[in-house]
């Protein structure tokens, strides 16, 4: 028994010595690639796929937002013929649930996957707030198609955000656009806001409020509810007591649906103008909000201002998935994926046998160095703090509360329909 154990041990020791020797001084022919990147390299052997991941909200009331962006990435992969540098592209997904905790969990899982080359995501600013540190520290870089919270790409955002860029607009633009729409177009002077405690909504309503005051308007109430609140009538009664002419709630789908469904029941708010933003720019709002959504305003990226071939994208989307787009950031996701592929093609070191090495720092720098990139949302250039979007915001009006009629890119009967600018 002892003898056999000894034999086994010696075999193992011998084997490990041989392996160590191989690792230390590779006996591979020709010039093997030596990775000198401070964050390391990802090796993709011949026949192996290039692994990218999409992380975002894929469950719960906001799943349309994440699903919509995921489709944008999938179409971008299709357009590449499913291949980058001769390797198949493997897309996996991780659900962040639109919460900081969910984002942290998803990011931790992704950070531990050493085969990952790059990421697209997240959907909700909260997910990024929760998860970005883990991804950055793992040497990964993610491009978000739909995070809009301004501070995420602030020059003073801190080193945790080194691996973060986005193709979505910052809400510094969106909040301002809505304020101008309300003050100049609707000619209202008294506005109230409501947020759901999310990083997105909190910041956006504040930008709106600041800009609205700058234009000369008054903010009569700024309230907030919890993200899982359902009974909005008390808080709406409080808002009604302040007597607004314009009520802005740039929240997510759950709260947005409940507020819209209940708002006309509250004395004093029967006719107030109501508006939301890109977080509820989805047919799911019509399901939750019902008939009250008719005439509601929603701000969103201006689809008609996209300089690229958006119509062609919509064709591909129709052919692949049928039906209308689900939310607003599919084109931004398509662009984000293409920026990632372009950077990948630029920095990847290709060996004769087809093996590729992707140096992580170089990839990150290539993404941030993106300049005059012809995307479908516009001509994109990234700022040193990761802002790559070409923001043009429009305000749309919901024409019909039937979810089946949702089709913002329809030529004949767009719903919602662009009304400003």
């Amino acid at each position, binding site marked *: 028994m002892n003898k056999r154990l000894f034999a086994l041990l010696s075999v193992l020791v011998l084997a490990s010595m041989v392996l160590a020797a191989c690792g230390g001084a590779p006996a591979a022919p020709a010039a093997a690639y030596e990775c000198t990147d401070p964050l390391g390299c990802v090796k993709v052997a011949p026949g192996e796929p290039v692994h990218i991941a999409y992380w975002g909200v894929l*469950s*719960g*009331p906001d*799943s*349309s937002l994440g699903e919509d962006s995921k489709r944008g990435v999938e179409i971008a992969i299709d357009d590449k013929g499913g291949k980058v540098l001769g390797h198949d592209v493997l897309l996996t997904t991780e659900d962040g649930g639109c919460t900081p905790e969910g984002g942290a969990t998803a990011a931790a899982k992704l950070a531990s996957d050493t085969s990952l080359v790059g990421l697209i995501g997240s959907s909700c600013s909260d997910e990024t707030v929760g998860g970005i540190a883990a991804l950055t520290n793992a040497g990964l870089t993610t491009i978000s198609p739909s995070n809009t919270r301004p501070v995420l790409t602030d020059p003073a955002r801190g080193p945790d955000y080194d691996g973060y860029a986005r193709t979505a607009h910052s809400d510094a633009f969106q909040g301002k656009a809505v304020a101008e729409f309300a003050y100049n177009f609707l000619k209202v002077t008294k506005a109230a806001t409501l947020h759901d*405690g999310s990083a997105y909504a909190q910041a956006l309503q504040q930008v709106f409020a600041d800009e609205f005051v700058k234009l000369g308007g008054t903010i009569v109430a*700024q*309230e*907030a*509810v*919890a993200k*899982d*609140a*359902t*009974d909005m*009538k*008390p*808080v709406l*009664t*409080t808002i*009604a*007591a302040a007597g607004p002419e314009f009520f802005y709630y740039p929240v997510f*789908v*759950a709260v947005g*649906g*409940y507020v819209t*469904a*209940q708002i006309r*029941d*509250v*004395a004093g708010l029967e006719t107030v103008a109501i508006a939301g933003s890109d977080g509820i720019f989805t047919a*799911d709002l019509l*399901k*939750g909000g*019902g*008939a009250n959504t008719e005439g509601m305003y929603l701000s969103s990226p201006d689809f008609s201002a996209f300089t690229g071939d958006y119509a062609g994208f919509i064709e591909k989307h129709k052919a692949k998935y049928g039906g209308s787009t689900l939310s607003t950031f599919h084109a931004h996701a398509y662009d984000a994926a293409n920026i990632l592929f372009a950077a990948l093609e630029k920095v990847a070191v290709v060996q004769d046998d087809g093996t590729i090495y992707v140096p992580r720092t170089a990839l990150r720098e290539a993404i941030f160095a993106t300049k005059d990139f012809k995307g479908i949302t516009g001509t994109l250039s990234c700022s040193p703090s990761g802002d790559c979007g070409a923001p043009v915001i429009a305000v749309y009006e919901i024409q019909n509360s039937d979810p089946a009629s949702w089709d913002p890119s329809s030529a004949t009967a767009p719903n919602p329909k662009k009304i400003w600018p």
Partner: protein
Amino acid sequence: MRTSVGERLLDLAVSGVLWGFRILLVAAVLLGTIATIRAGKYTSEQWIDFVVFGISQGSIYALIALGYTMVYGILRMINFAHGDIFMTGAFGAYFLATWLNGIGFIDNHPILGLLIPILFAMIMAGGIAMLVERIAYRPLRGAPRLVPLISAIGASFFLEYAFRGFFGPGVYAYPPIKALEGEWNVLGVGILKVQVVVAVAAFIMMAILYFIVMFTKAGKAMRAVSESKDTAALMGIDVNRIIVSTFALGAAMAGAAGVLYSLIYRQVGFFMGFTPGIKAFTAAVLGGIGNIPGAMVGGLVLGVFESVGPSLFLEGLGIPRPYQLKDAIAFTMLVMILLFRPSGILGERITTKKA
């Protein structure tokens, strides 16, 4: 029973701190209330609205809380899947009501269009609860108390994710009932019809349940089993049958609550039972768990406090965005009750210690 001076001093100090806490809390509530009322931001009609919103929400809590309290009364067990039973009822009613709406039945017969989905939801929720009891709880009847509790949490997740699997992660809109739109004028105050109908329906349901438990043979048997299972069995009561019918009855209430909830909030989704379930559990503890009138009182108190509290005293205290703290009010009340009156508002009635 002799305690040392040190221990007595410690006791005194602890109760002193607790009393101080109590006084502080009451003072904060009073100060906030006075400040709000002096600010005069709300009209009396708005105050009435707050209370009415609270009553209709509270009566839904009460209906769900009945299920928690009945099962606890009979098995000493918290049925954590109860919130999801509520969700199954709402789903069942949603599909039936959508179909009825499609054929124009609800517009032509608004009362039947309201009652039939409620009845269907009650039957469906009751049936699912009986299945859950049979599969997840009965085999664990003799096990330590923690075991069925864990099983209940498992059942809760199972129901949630089974429904998610069948019907997707999104939400469905409950069909609007035209007859319930608009307001009724009650003593010069406009009150939403749907709120009135929900509150009245909930009170009728509770009255029926109370009648069943107090004045029928089955109810008597339930009370007997809750006093002592062994003695009840010796008296010829089929304990298992009574337990099943308790589950079914509680679940039927939750199913009805699910429909009423959908009538007010017009949304049905797989996760909708979670928060109301926890709130109703809070309500059951608030009223005194195991006590049926207690669950009703607890639900109403909780609903009204949640609705009135943020604007009545949190705003007066100068807290910004008070509605974010709505849940905090509910759970602060729970903690207060557990600290100062563990048996709940009406909890004194359970005097006999049950094994």
